[in-house]
């Protein structure tokens, strides 16, 4: 039975887009850098999740968040709201930082092996157990994908980006992003179905 999903994957924290929109905040931050804190609060956790999924390391993800935010703040004048979303622009910076990091330190495959080790420090035992099983299963499903397909899934689910924003972040067309996501989800669903 089909059910409707929200247009954007549910973000566990605040609804992105609530309050002043990104473009207004970005323009304000150009004039007064203190306004950037609102964009930071809005995107830091999503960047962290995405970076952690890519690198497999909370420490590396922390660094990536910092580097991405710093780059975004310094290059804020390059962001043009008329030409795309702030989310797409920001995650494009993050993707570039991650790619440069992976070129230096190894490819995604190696990171996958240690991806999403569950952080039990803040979860209760039952939640951790359930999540650990989920993480293992998700990791196995993602491992069957090509790096490019895996990337769109991570941007979709870890970062909660729309297809348009994914396309902007990766520098590909909307159609290509949609195609990659469709293909990836179909492959994962088939693999998951075989397990059930």
């Amino acid at each position, binding site marked *: 039975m089909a059910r409707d999903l929200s247009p954007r994957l549910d973000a566990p924290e605040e609804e992105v887009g609530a309050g002043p929109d990104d473009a207004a905040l970005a323009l304000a931050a150009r004039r007064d850098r203190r306004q950037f804190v609102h964009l930071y609060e809005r995107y830091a956790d999503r960047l962290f999740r995405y970076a952690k999924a890519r690198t497999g390391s909370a420490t590396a993800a922390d660094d990536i968040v910092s580097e991405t935010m710093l780059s975004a703040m310094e290059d804020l004048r390059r962001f043009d709201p008329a030409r795309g979303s702030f989310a797409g622009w920001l995650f494009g910076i993050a993707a570039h930082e991650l790619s440069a990091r992976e070129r230096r330190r*190894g490819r995604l495959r190696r990171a996958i092996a240690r991806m999403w080790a569950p952080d039990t420090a803040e979860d209760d035992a039952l939640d951790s157990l359930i999540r650990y099983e989920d993480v293992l299963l998700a990791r196995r499903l993602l491992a069957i994908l090509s790096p490019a397909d895996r990337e769109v899934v991570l941007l979709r689910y870890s970062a909660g980006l729309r297809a348009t924003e994914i396309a902007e972040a990766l*520098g590909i*067309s909307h*159609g290509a992003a949609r195609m990659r996501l469709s293909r990836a989800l179909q492959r994962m669903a088939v693999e998951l179905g075989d397990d059930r």
Partner: protein
Amino acid sequence: MSDRHDDLDLPVDPTLDALLRRALATGGLTPQQRDRRLEELDLTTPELELPGGIVPVSGAPKSLSFDSAAPRGERRSRRELFELAAVLAVIALGAGLLLAQLWDGRSDPATRPVIQPGPFATPAPFVATATPAPPSFAGATERLYVVSRVLTQAGDTVLTSGRVTALDPDSGRQEWSLYLGHMVDALLSRDGATIYVAASRADGMQGELLAVDAIDGTELWRIAIPDRVWWSDEEGPAGLALSRDGTRLYLLSCSREAGPACDPSDDPSLAIYDASSGRQVAGLAFDGCLGTPYLSPDARALVLACEDRPGARVVDLESGELIAALPGHALVGSVASPDGRWLYVISDDDGVYQAAVIDMHSRELLVQMASVALVGSQPERFLDLVTISPDGSRLFIGVLSAYEGNTRVAKDIFVIDTETLQSVGRMTASPEINARTLAPAADNRSVFAAHAVVERDPGVWARSTITHFGLGVEPRTIAVLEHQQALRLLSWTKPAGQPISRDWASLEACPAPPYTGAAPSDPRQAAYSRNITDKGCSRGTR
């Protein structure tokens, strides 16, 4: 049973959707991390200190043509490069508008040949139904082939297939077209007679290798390679090469265990096939290096960039010996001169392109790292955005150099003199297009380029425009391929006075001295002043 993401209009398995949300969409920075990073950003200063103006960096090229390159050894910071890029972007805007006017005036879209995808059946895409080429194609002095992915939509499903299309570069006329499996790559033999194609079946889980007559598109032979997949991402493999004498075909492949594309850890191997029959004659497994290998186009060298050690290693495939160990920079590709003598290994040192030059006759590293002054970033598909002119005098390198929306795209193609490794010019593509792959044209000063449309209409899945442009060459649209993503262009120029034949020896303008198997000399930093004539090689012919 399926759910639907309404910004995608795609079905999503609800169980999978819920699983991915639970596994991926939770967690975040700890409060301590957040506070520390916010403090580092120093958001207490009222005014954001942005550059007061755009200031060219010291020693930067002074002209749009980028004639002068930075001295070797000079490094520019990323910030400086950004500033320089901004300057050039402003200038390029004006040039781009002018170019757009020229473009529009000379190439009316209504008159451009439009190639629509033919009938497509799934899941059996191997329909070798090439249309016989007219006699004129067999006698053509220049030919162009487009290796592309065809996208078709059936309900919510996107179907992909590979296609090789032969074009007359003058008229844009389609000479023949061949549908294949997806994720195809191809190369053209030096004599222009045969196209070798690495394809995958529709499920992506088994490779096939086949040879096609380049004149009429008929299939010469085909072999299945079970349980192996190609060294590829979805953008196309980079592991197919042909020996200089045209008799051996080299193919990098991996175990299919991890999926339809190779990954460095998936049992990589190099197989060698008889190019006339497809029979495998040798194989080579290599391990101890988790990284991406590149075959030099003439299969003389294997370039390995390993994860667990900095830099890249260049290995002679004939002897298995190490030719060069290049210092720690991100390897982005290699290209060989048409005569096979020089191998250019190009890397990216934090935004500065560098080139190592190896003499493949003596197996000697001539230049370890020479700065190549380019402005822009390394594209994802760098291998397809670097090519060399038929006479070996010019390298053409596309870089991500402009913004479309907030996305960087490749509009600039730098022309590099291979003698000096200095930039001698910059070609700017039309504003509406984004270069994806290049092939050299016969005049040695222009290129064919396949462009992906920078589009925002989700109804347009893909469109590739094939163009011809260059220094002093009026830009010209050759063809528009609807619903196709061009992965690679192959061009062939008939050698002057040479018939199209398999007479390999007649094409060898720069014969290699006998290889004695001696150990290569130690890498050394040498002044880059090659005199090709003195070495007995004429670069003017192929």
